[in-house]
């Protein structure tokens, strides 16, 4: 009985695999202009004669098989086949694949820093953009760094301390929140292997926001501890977005977050002054130039849209 059930299931799966092919019969390359040609009448077996007439019963099928390739090709070309005909149209001006106008873009992402040799940082990000034109958007970007294992000191820091007795002050980040404007100066399409075509665009992005950071005590860790503080931050970047559908894309973005950081002081005060918090930080701030790569997906809402002008 088990074997019987197995056989039945195999047949069902096989039939279901083939069943969706029926939908291809209804394939249309144009919603309104599809025209179906009435197939030529055939004989009871579905064969046609050389002039499109039904074959007489007992036609010489074996003789046909013995024909040469050239003769067969000529015969096949001359004989009409059972076909479905659709008409493909081209338009004087092709429409842009996906419009952004008046759509909301939601972009979850994973981010990692690129140019900090001392600390490796990773973050989870979420971006929101509203497109008020097809190439301009205003948005908000949020990055959360303060997750287990998302920030780690690099080996270089250790090597420098060991070899040169030089401590490089480092910081820890909690979050970044940035408002930004996006402009799309480049868009295009690529063809892969002369077959598949996909749409993409490149954008520039920039804005202002804040980073919440604090120094990590490495000069005098026994005494010093630091709290997170807000830093005004500017950001500028470029990105690439590939459309998987009219509402779903994948993107990669390079963004430079610039802000002024006040690192831990390299000097340790003596006596009671060692406990004085005002001596724990460096005298002046330094510009931090932090290039971050963000990789993620974007979803455009609403999913569908209407073109303003007809095709």
């Amino acid at each position, binding site marked *: 009985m088990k074997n019987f059930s197995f056989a039945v299931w195999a047949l069902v799966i096989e039939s279901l695999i083939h069943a969706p092919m029926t939908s291809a019969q209804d394939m249309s390359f144009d919603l309104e202009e599809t025209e179906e040609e009435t197939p030529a009448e055939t004989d009871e077996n579905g064969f046609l004669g050389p002039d499109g007439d039904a074959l007489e019963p007992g036609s010489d099928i074996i003789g046909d098989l013995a024909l040469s390739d050239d003769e067969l090709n000529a015969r096949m070309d001359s004989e009409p086949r059972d076909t479905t005909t659709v008409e493909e149209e081209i338009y004087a001006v092709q429409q842009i694949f996906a419009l952004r106008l008046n759509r909301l873009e939601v972009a979850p992402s994973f981010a990692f820093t690129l140019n900090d040799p001392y600390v490796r940082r990773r973050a989870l990000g979420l971006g929101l953009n509203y497109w008020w034109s097809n190439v301009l958007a205003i948005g908000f970007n949020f990055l959360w760094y303060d997750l287990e294992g998302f920030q780690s000191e690099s080996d270089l820091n250790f090597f420098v301390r060991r070899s040169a*007795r030089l401590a490089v002050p480092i910081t820890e980040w909690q979050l970044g929140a940035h408002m930004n404007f996006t402009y799309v100066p480049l868009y295009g399409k*690529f063809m892969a292997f002369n077959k598949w075509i996909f749409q993409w665009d*490149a954008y520039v992005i920039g804005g202002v926001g804040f980073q919440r950071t604090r120094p990590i005590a490495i000069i005098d860790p026994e005494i010093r501890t630091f709290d997170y503080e807000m830093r005004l931050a500017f950001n500028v970047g470029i990105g690439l977005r590939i459309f998987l559908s009219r509402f779903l894309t994948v993107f990669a973005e390079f963004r430079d977050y610039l802000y002024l950081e006040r690192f831990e002081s390299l000097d340790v005060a003596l006596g009671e002054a060692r406990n004085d918090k005002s001596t724990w930080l460096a005298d002046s701030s330094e510009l931090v130039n932090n290039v971050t790569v963000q990789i993620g997906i974007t979803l455009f809402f609403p999913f569908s849209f209407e073109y303003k002008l007809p095709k």
Partner: protein
Amino acid sequence: MNPARRILFSIVLLGMLSLGMTHASPLAAQEVQITGPLAGAPACRSCRIYRRGRISLTPMVGFSLRDEYNRSVFTGGSAEYHVLDWLGFGAFFMYSPVQLATSLTDEVESQGVTTDRNRLSLPSSDNFSDQIGSIDFIIAPQVLFIPLRGKLALFQRIFVDTDFYIHLGLSIVGLTERAHTEAGICDEATDACLASQSARSSRVTMNATFGAGIRLYINDFIAINAEWRGLPFAWNTSGTDESGSEDGDFPDGVIDSDDRISHFNQMVSLGVSIYLPSSAAVSN
């Protein structure tokens, strides 16, 4: 499952099976024919064949990325022959006439401290820039694979043909590093120890290289080229005593090949590609 339910289940399954088969069978002889102007058209018609059967010569400038102590500025180029529009063979060459110290090198020079424990690694902080390693040249026979081509619009006005390529090859990299030292040379602060800081040795290392780039075609035979390249290999970037044998006997008191640390070296380059012959074929 009781017999009645089993029979009912089998009937339903057979019904589904027969439904699938009856719908599947007429399709086998069906053929979709497209009429109209795009009937039988390829994905790209009258495409310019920029690469097939042509040589490209690309003078380039570039610089290394993510450097710890020293940034190399390169000049050179590449030469390729494309047997197909999506496949080419060639060679990449870069020479570094300019070396720039990073801010970390400046900091070690200004604030590094030499003690008895690290005298071999840093005989004198003032001369630290003399001991750091540098990349002198890169030669890379390589294969180019061009999976993507297309066009892009700049500012909705300028349209340029573009292709995207990846390359894979063998890298032959010329390096200059701090020369190997003898054991005990820096046990005392001697002139020999100081001299070892500036002693240099050159070597060539071979590894794999890979990367990607794009070319923007200005016309049939000139394109702007931007490329990223990864060069993984081990070297002693700082000229310091970083490790001993595999057993981890740091410090081993000498600077030698055991102190080389694996790095994922990277560089970017920009160039202008010139294609020969100057006219590009056009596909049907």
